[in-house]
């Protein structure tokens, strides 16, 4: 009991310990804020990628696509672990308002209703959220063939990250040009037929929150995309997006799809278009979007490592403070030993002191961090309003509010790390204190 009493008194009565507490609080504050924002950004980015791709994707990177996709879709429809399926055409083309210059875009041919059951496509639309099946029907003339444009292709965000648009898509036609390819990869047409061009009318916008997608993607009706890309006769697709039933684990589902694909592919051996199946892979959405997600994850890892160094700084600060406290308390150690305290008791006393520094410091750091995160967007708005400072430029980055949702596991990890850092910092000084001989510390010339 005296160890707890003395540890508390050392904490309260020695001003230098306040510096240690403040140092720990600052480190915890910084780590909590940065990790929360970073984890929020990465989590949000992953979620957006998941919504873009579904759970599992059977796809080829080849622009030629692969045949027999309808048969594999039928196979998947019979599987009890699959909830929804959406084949897609993915290619590249040129678009431009009728009669003007063109820009390069990514083309995605989908059935909007099917694709919305598998992905979050429906939720990304501005005007057809409630009836996604009509996403390609322009409201101003449902008889026209529509297209959904990535919103950043048409509009710019303002400094607050919002688009300034009218009540609905204007009557605008976009000519889309693609280079049709044969199953062997050669251009399907010659001379003037080298390029397929078709005009589509702006029916809706899509905001996936993925800057690259929203800035370069145009969604077309599946059949029309097939025609433009020469993926008919035989019908071909580039990808099949799959959504699993809720109780199916991602990896288990992907393994089952891979197994089905393997059997399907073996069944097609010797068929005329079988060679197109060689480049098809079965991947989870994480692997399918790896090239997008990996840099973010890498940044998060780098940040974690950097803040590991902040943790080392905390250890060093606590070490220095503990060392100073203990060097001033050698007389106390002698007294305590003279009344029966053991070496272990001395280690416990100063470890308890360090624990309290960690407890108080991390408590203050977590509380102020939580308070700061609660108001982080208001603070940023105020800074932007008064000084023009933004954490990131909303006209460039497809990020809205700064993520501020604190994750319990992050809090627990930071809290425990701070306390462990304090205990580690105090370990050596405590051990040295415990080794002091009472006769030496109580000598007259030591006073």
């Amino acid at each position, binding site marked *: *009991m005296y160890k707890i009493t003395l540890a508390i*008194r050392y904490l309260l009565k020695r001003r230098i310990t306040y510096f240690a507490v403040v140092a720990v609080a600052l480190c915890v504050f910084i780590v909590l804020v940065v990790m929360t924002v970073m984890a929020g950004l990465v989590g949000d980015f992953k979620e957006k990628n998941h919504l873009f791709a579904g759970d599992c994707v059977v796809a080829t990177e080849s622009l030629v696509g692969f045949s027999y996709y309808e048969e594999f879709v039928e196979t998947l429809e019979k599987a009890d672990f699959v909830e929804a399926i959406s084949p897609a055409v993915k290619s590249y083309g040129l678009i431009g308002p009728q009669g003007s210059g063109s820009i390069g875009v990514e083309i995605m041919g989908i059935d909007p209703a099917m694709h919305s059951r598998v992905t979050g496509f429906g939720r990304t639309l501005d005007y057809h959220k409630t009836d996604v099946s009509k996403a390609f029907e322009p409201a101003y003339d449902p008889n026209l063939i529509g297209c959904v444009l990535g919103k950043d292709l048409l509009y710019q965000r303002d400094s607050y990250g919002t688009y300034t648009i009218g009540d609905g898509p204007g009557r605008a036609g976009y000519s889309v040009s693609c280079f049709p390819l044969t199953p062997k990869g050669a251009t399907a047409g010659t001379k003037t037929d080298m390029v397929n061009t078709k005009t589509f009318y702006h029916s809706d916008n899509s905001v996936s929150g993925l800057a690259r997608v929203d800035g370069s993607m145009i969604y077309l009706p599946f059949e029309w995309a097939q025609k433009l890309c020469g993926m008919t006769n035989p019908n071909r697709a580039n990808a099949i997006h799959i959504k699993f039933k809720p109780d199916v684990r991602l990896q288990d589902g992907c393994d089952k799809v891979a197994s089905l694909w393997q059997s399907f592919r073996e069944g097609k051996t010797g068929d005329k278009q079988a060679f197109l199946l060689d480049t098809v892979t079965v991947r989870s959405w994480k692997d399918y979007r790896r090239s997008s997600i990996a840099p973010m994850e890498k940044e998060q890892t780098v940040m974690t490592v950097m803040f590991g160094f902040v943790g080392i700084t905390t250890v060093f600060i606590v070490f220095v403070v503990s060392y100073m406290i203990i060097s001033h308390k050698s007389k106390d150690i002698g007294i305590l*030993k003279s009344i029966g305290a053991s070496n272990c008791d001395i280690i416990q006393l100063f470890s308890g002191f360090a624990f309290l520094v960690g407890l108080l410091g991390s408590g203050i750091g977590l509380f102020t961090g939580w308070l700061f995160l609660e108001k982080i967007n208001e603070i940023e708005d105020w800074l932007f309003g008064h000084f023009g400072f933004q954490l990131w430029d909303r006209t460039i980055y497809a990020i809205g509010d700064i993520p501020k949702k604190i994750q319990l596991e992050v809090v627990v990890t930071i809290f425990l790390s701070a306390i462990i850092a304090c205990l580690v910092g105090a370990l050596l000084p405590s051990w040295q204190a415990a080794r002091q001989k*009472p006769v030496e510390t*109580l000598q007259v010339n030591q006073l």
Partner: protein
Amino acid sequence: MLKVEGLHKSYHMGATEVKVLKGVDLAVKKGEFVAIIGASGSGKSTLLHIMGALDRPDKGAVEFEKRDMSRFGAGELNRFRNDAVGFVFQFYHLLDELNVLENVYLPAMAGKSIAGWFARRKAAKNRATQLLTQLGLAERARHKPYQLSGGERQRVAIGRALMNEPRLLLADEPTGNLDSSTGNGILDVLERFNETGQTIVMVTHDDRIANRAGRTVMLADGKIMD
């Protein structure tokens, strides 16, 4: 109660070995008040520290209540220091962070687990308050050591030393840092406790102070002189 035989102790000062005790023999009976007198540097404090298990001899034996202390393990030595012996130092050695009452009952706290302390807390506080009353410090219980005079601090140190009712009280120059009249007051306190049966071994370099003890032994040249 306490028997010291052939005690040797030396220290190293740089490359030089200084032999402080060169075969000390001493016996202390229960209820005795023994003063060990000697010049500065004669090894009085070293002898006292060895008798109180704060230090170990190079050679020789210390028996406490017929038990060889060299056979005590670390835990036994800690228990011995906690409840069998009480120390009074020349410079009081009170803990600045604790008040007078807390300083006095500190040994009782040190000897108990948290649960044990909560079970005995009231009794320990009563004992500490009773000691402070005996020492004339009842009004000073909530004061911090720095608010006390030297004599008051030493009385607090005596209270702390007697808290666990030790069989042996070891006092190292208890009046060495006090003026004559305050020092006499401290000796009065020690005499009073000795009259109630407390065994005391006191170290001093002052003949007049040593004469207040029941028996005086002289330490010179590392040995007890008859």
